[in-house]
């Protein structure tokens, strides 16, 4: 018999409650945390979500599969490409369409570029949450280079909707390979600066080491995936466990750690950035020639059935569950977004700490609020 993990909150009328949010700068969006305090110690945390609930799952029921792609950008806007890919892969698998090799390679490269951009933004915002303002300028400086590559190839910087069922919207820009290689060369020099600036900072280490410990059992039971889960030893990398696109052709390691505190979650994301650059370098010179999309019908109708597809976004496991009745509109689309589960663990790992530690812990979980509210 396994140990049962319990952290049911019991509220009392004489609890001392303060609200953190909905407009608190450290939540990076509209999230309200109800904190019960005892002195400066936090007794429990109740997250209140739904401030930017847009009903995307309901909207999907009146949209075609091509239109759904554009809605998925708006969940985790920092992993827009991976979110698109989740829906595309699901539709392709359901239709049993084989996409060209070229598409698989480009998708994988873009996934990793997107992951790098996302981790850079997380790094600079995390430093800023803990009072190190310089990180913000360093992070955004490097992220700008990736966004420029995106802009040149897809015409937009953040929400590119570049994937379509069957392939890509159009071919990549002729400069894409050259500029990506230049960026990798540039960023390999810049990434050690991140360690010098923040990771080795004594104040930063004191604020993050040993704070917000999460065990492997807790990570699995709460469904905490992505770098936050892997920092606790939960091997949850979809790229490794269930390879999609060109991930089965590249050699990379799933970075795991078992310490499980805030500093480990931080270190793990820095290590993932190195690994992402490795993956891009293996693929960028080997993009096969060919079409940028498979031949698809203009109106996509999925066969009757239920389909589930998982991908790894920069924050964890993203799942798309589509139920089709054979029409061009789906009956039901459910998105399993990583941040939804990642936020719920906050009470478990955050209670018992001080208020300022909640900022560090929620920062290390790398929350993007639209991804929670959908």
């Amino acid at each position, binding site marked *: *018999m*396994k140990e*049962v*993990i*319990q*952290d*049911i*909150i019991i509220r009392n009328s004489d609890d001392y409650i303060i609200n953190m949010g909905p407009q608190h700068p450290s939540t990076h969006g509209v999230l309200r945390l109800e904190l019960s305090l005892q002195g400066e110690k936090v007794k429990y945390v109740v997250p209140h*979500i*739904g401030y930017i*609930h847009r*009903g995307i*799952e*309901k*909207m999907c029921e*009146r949209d075609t599969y091509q239109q759904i792609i554009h809605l998925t950008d708006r969940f985790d806007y920092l992993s827009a490409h991976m979110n698109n890919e989740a829906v595309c892969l699901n539709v392709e*698998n359901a239709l049993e369409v084989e996409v060209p090799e070229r598409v698989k390679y480009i998708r994988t490269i873009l996934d990793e570029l997107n992951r790098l951009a996302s981790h850079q933004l997380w790094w600079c915002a995390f430093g800023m949450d803990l009072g190190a303002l310089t990180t913000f300028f360093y992070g955004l400086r490097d992220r700008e280079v990736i966004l420029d590559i995106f802009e040149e190839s897809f015409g937009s910087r953040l929400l590119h909707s570049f994937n379509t069922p069957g392939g890509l919207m159009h071919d990549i820009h002729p400069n894409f390979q050259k500029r990506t290689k230049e960026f990798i060369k540039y960023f390999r020099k810049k990434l050690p600066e991140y360690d010098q600036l923040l990771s080795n900072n004594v104040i930063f280490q004191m604020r993050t080491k040993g704070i917000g410990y999460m065990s492997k059992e*807790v990570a*699995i*039971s*709460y*469904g905490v995936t992505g770098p936050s889960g892997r920092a606790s030893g*939960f*091997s*949850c990398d979809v790229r490794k*466990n269930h390879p999609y696109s060109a991930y089965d052709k590249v050699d990379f390691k799933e970075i795991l750690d078992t310490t499980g505190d805030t500093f480990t979650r931080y270190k793990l994301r820095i290590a993932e950035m190195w690994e992402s650059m490795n993956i891009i370098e293996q693929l960028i010179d080997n993009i096969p020639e060919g079409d940028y999309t498979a031949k698809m019908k203009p109106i996509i109708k999925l066969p009757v*059935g*239920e*389909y*589930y597809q*998982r991908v790894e976004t920069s924050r964890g*496991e993203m*799942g798309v*569950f589509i*139920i089709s009745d054979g029409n061009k509109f789906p*009956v*039901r689309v*459910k998105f*399993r977004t990583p941040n*939804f*589960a990642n936020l*719920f663990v906050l009470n*478990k790992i955050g209670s018992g700490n001080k208020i300022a530690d909640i900022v560090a812990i929620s920062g290390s979980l790398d929350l993007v609020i639209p991804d929670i*509210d*959908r």
Partner: protein
Amino acid sequence: MTNDQLKEKISEWVSGIEFPENKQYLEVLVPANSLKKLAELLHNTPETDFDYLISLSGVDYVSHLAVVYHLESTSHKHFLVMKVKTEDRENPNFDTVNEIWRTAEWYEREVFDMFGIKFNNHPDLRRLLMDDDWVGFPLRKDYKDEIKMIER
């Protein structure tokens, strides 16, 4: 465990089980009254060891309401889709699984919010995404969108 072994094991444990056709994964349709028993057995038995609840979704099939559980074992890497359904639209209710997989607490709140399915013994069954005073359950097929929020 292979899918066939899982099938055999599950039919041994609980009676009245059905295995609907699913192209991707093994799917199990559980009678509502044995949902909790099967969930506990799947989670606690070392051979099955379904310790990771990936997602929990409510579905309105018009003829009935259902809850779909996507389960994976982190040690054995096998996958299972567990489904439970009810034809009662007035007062649908199932047992909660939040003590087994803690992540279910919020997923069940979301299903309650969107489909009005109640979960017995849930510790904190409030609306999650919609306002507390919202009337109706938006993701149901018979939901009346009176203020034209979705259809223009």
